[in-house]
């Protein structure tokens, strides 16, 4: 039973998975053909051994630099700053952005002890330093208090290098219903209103 207990123990360390769910997952896997379990093990091993952070932007990938940084068709004059590598996928799915990225690795949060030294800000400074081709930095941190204070801090770094800095717009979701939006979101949308084109 040690192997079963080991797997339950490892699965229950994952976010959102308690011991009960881990037990259910373990017994589900045990009911599958042995090859299914081996495939999962190989996939986990591949992620652990082959995936790492890009030394340029911090994105996660199997190559260094990552596929986005290596893509010569990308616009290197525009850098989009995001909190986590997973945010890159969300922006890429829009198909609207052709620039490159910079992953901070989190946001400033004094209550959690996360300060400027804990984020990949030196890497950003280096990318914007003398001789850089970057003309615009888009700050796409989350629209939370911590995300906003992080955006302010990044803005200071970017402006010190005389590079244009912009912030993604905040407001109502497309296809949403005004009646059901919360008052904070509506207030932000009103504050960020623009001329109709």
């Amino acid at each position, binding site marked *: 039973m040690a192997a079963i207990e080991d797997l339950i123990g490892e699965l229950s360390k994952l*976010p*959102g998975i308690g011991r009960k769910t881990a037990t259910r997952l373990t017994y589900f896997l045990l009911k599958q053909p042995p090859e299914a379990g081996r495939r999962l093990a190989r996939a986990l091993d591949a992620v652990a051994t082959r995936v790492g952070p890009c030394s340029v932007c911090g994105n996660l990938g199997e190559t260094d630099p990552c596929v986005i940084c290596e893509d010569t068709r990308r616009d290197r004059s525009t850098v989009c700053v995001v909190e986590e590598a997973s945010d890159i996928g969300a922006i890429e799915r829009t198909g609207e952005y052709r620039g490159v990225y910079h992953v901070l690795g989190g946001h400033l949060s004094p*209550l959690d002890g996360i300060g400027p030294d804990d984020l990949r800000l030196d890497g950003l400074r280096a990318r914007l330093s003398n001789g850089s081709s970057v003309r615009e930095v888009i700050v796409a941190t989350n629209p939370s208090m911590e995300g*906003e204070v992080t955006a302010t801090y990044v803005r200071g770094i970017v402006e010190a290098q005389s590079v244009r800095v912009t912030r993604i717009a905040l407001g109502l979701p497309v296809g949403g219903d005004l009646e059901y939006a919360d008052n*904070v979101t509506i207030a932000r949308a009103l504050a960020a209103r623009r001329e109709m084109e």
Partner: protein
Amino acid sequence: MPPVHTRALILHAFPYGETSKIVRLLTREHGSQSAIAKGAQRPKSPFGARLQVLSEGTAHVYIKPHRDLHTLADFDVTRQHEELTRDLRRFAAATALAELLIRLCPAEPHPEIYDLTVSSLAQLETVPGEALDLASLSVLWAAVEALGFAPQRDACARDGRALPAGATVFSVADGGFLCSRCARGTRSARLGADDRRVLERLIAGEVSDIALLDAKHAAAHRRLLVRFVERHLAEDRELKALAMWRELA
């Protein structure tokens, strides 16, 4: 049991599982309380963007007697203190204040602490940048005093003798100023008459007649406050937000 409706400030909000959040609230009528906001992380949650740290509003909470974790039914935001995010130093000071309250404010009615906290956040939002150090020290010392942990400053903290005017010693370990006899041989902070007056004013929250602090004195005052809080209020445990506020120039 119907929910209670109380003015409240969100001191901290963090994910709980995949879909919910736990919020630490400072309420006006029920003191410090923790509540779970079920489903608050879901994309279509009715909580939407309301559960941000330092948001002020009306909390609708199902309070269960003798429990530590209650259920947040809704939160109507009246103010988000967004200006605090325009400057990391302001945000760090505000979250250091929140951290003090999370650790030390009891789950009992303390409307005066709630009112003080709300006005302190407003002050941190609007104070000019050059006066931010003074304002931060003032609101944090005011919170320490309101929570009942103010340093002894009217008499010697060790033997209770009256303190003469002028230069003196502030002992973090003893929890206040020392008379010259008790101060002999101690390695506590020696304060000139002017520095003592500034510290007394900061603790009393009377800063209108104090000149702005230069960087060196501001840093010394920040270190002193943090050492005092860690020693007497946090049982020598590090307070993360307070430590960050101390380090930010």
